[in-house]
């Protein structure tokens, strides 16, 4: 099966600080992958490189066999740690913005997700709470029929109710032909939906394994393994 995402010897530095160090891995289609690591381990950097937001790095990255360019932007849907919306927008403006620029945007799915997330199209984005804003960002990212979804800390900083709602939405609206990478350090809340996990520690990839294999081989849950690997 062809790889959907391939990293080959990718390194990235911010000044003297290494964010990624010779990272190589590949991901096939139809998987939900947990990208796990502590704060500052390099998860966001890896996602931003894949999304095309960080053009300066060494090594090679391909999405669906293509090097990162304009075409890969149209098949990768990224929910970053910063809002994808602009302060002047209402919820409906954000939906129209996405619909105008992404040919794979599914308006019916977006409206269904807005309803599921209890979001009102007439609401100003600047008046949304953090939890509601996270729901909107997720709606925008998942309403596209992309090949690869990247969700950077989708449940970080939201209350347990919003967290459950967001996880339910991911499972409900995620297209099974695509792959989805979710970065988080809140492993316990989310590990139930992962097919594979990638552990990143100080910019190094320290583990990439299927969740079932990890449980069989080590006899531990993802959360236990996470605590073991990242213990200080």
């Amino acid at each position, binding site marked *: 099966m062809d790889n959907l995402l391939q990293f080959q010897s990718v390194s990235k530095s911010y000044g003297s600080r290494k964010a990624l160090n010779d990272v190589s891995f590949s991901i096939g289609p139809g998987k939900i992958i947990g990208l796990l690591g502590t704060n500052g381990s390099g998860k966001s950097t890896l996602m931003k490189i894949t999304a*095309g*937001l960080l*053009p*300066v790095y060494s090594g090679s990255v391909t999405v669906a066999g293509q090097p990162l360019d*304009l075409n890969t932007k149209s098949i990768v849907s990224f929910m970053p740690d910063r*809002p*994808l919306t*602009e302060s*002047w927008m209402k919820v409906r403006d954000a939906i129209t913005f996405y619909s105008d*620029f992404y040919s794979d945007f599914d308006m019916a799915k977006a409206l269904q997700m807005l309803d599921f997330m209890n979001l009102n199209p007439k609401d100003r984005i600047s008046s949304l709470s953090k939890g509601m804003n996270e729901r909107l960002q997720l709606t925008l990212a998942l309403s596209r029929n992309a090949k690869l979804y990247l969700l950077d800390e989708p449940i970080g900083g939201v209350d347990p109710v919003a967290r459950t709602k967001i996880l339910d939405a991911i499972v409900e609206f995620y297209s099974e032909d695509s792959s989805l990478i979710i970065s988080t350090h809140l492993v316990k809340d989310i590990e139930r939906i992962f097919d594979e996990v990638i552990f990143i520690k100080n910019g190094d990839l320290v583990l990439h394994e299927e969740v079932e294999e990890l449980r069989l081989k080590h006899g531990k849950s993802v959360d236990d393994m996470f605590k073991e690997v990242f213990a200080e």
Partner: protein
Amino acid sequence: MMRLLKYDWKKNSTMLLSTAVILILAEVGLTTASYTRGWEEGITIGLSIMLYVFTSMLAVIMTYRTFFSNAKSYSRRLLPVRTVWSVLSPMVLGSLVLIGLGILICIHIGVFSLIYGVPDLKDISTEVTSQLLKVTAIFVFQVFWAYLFSYMAIALSIAIALMFQRGRVWIGILSFIVIQNVISWIISSLFEVSFGGIPFLNVKLQSNLMVGGEVVFPDNIMIINWGETLLEAVFIVLMLYATVLLLNRRVEA
């Protein structure tokens, strides 16, 4: 680019429309006060011009700010749209706003003429009208040209500044000064620059234009230096290319 333009307009529409309303109210107030209190025409014209210049400066600054915020914004950087259109979209928006301002000025001149009889639009002969149109066209072209150059120089300066994590403001200012001076020096050393040596105002004024009295337009009142204009066009394209290259290869969101 039309879709980008649509969202650049939406992003700035509240500010632009409110500024337009304030400008119209201020100009109406000024003209009314001037008429009812019998102010001198020169004072009214001077104050009106100041308001228009101030508004056009606001519009131009809006385009720079829009470019800057778009260059940093995730929502724009992630779009599957060629970077060149993202660079040009705020510039086109600014041009449209300046055109709108120009239309407003024309309407104001018409209203002023009806109230004060100056300029006397009925008495302007066909010959004078054709010269007036020529002078106006050259003036509009010069304003657009200077705006286009300044926009590209500032866009490139912003792109250079965004390559760095620290000291962006100072790097941007320094870049703009260097770009401006290097290009001005090259143009000045190759061409005889008019208007006190300011490039991008590349016309020669052949005669003084009188305001308020009898207007006499000699032939060739203004001549565009096309060689200089062509070189400037090359610099504008080079700055656009460099800006796109930096945004694609060096600037990180």
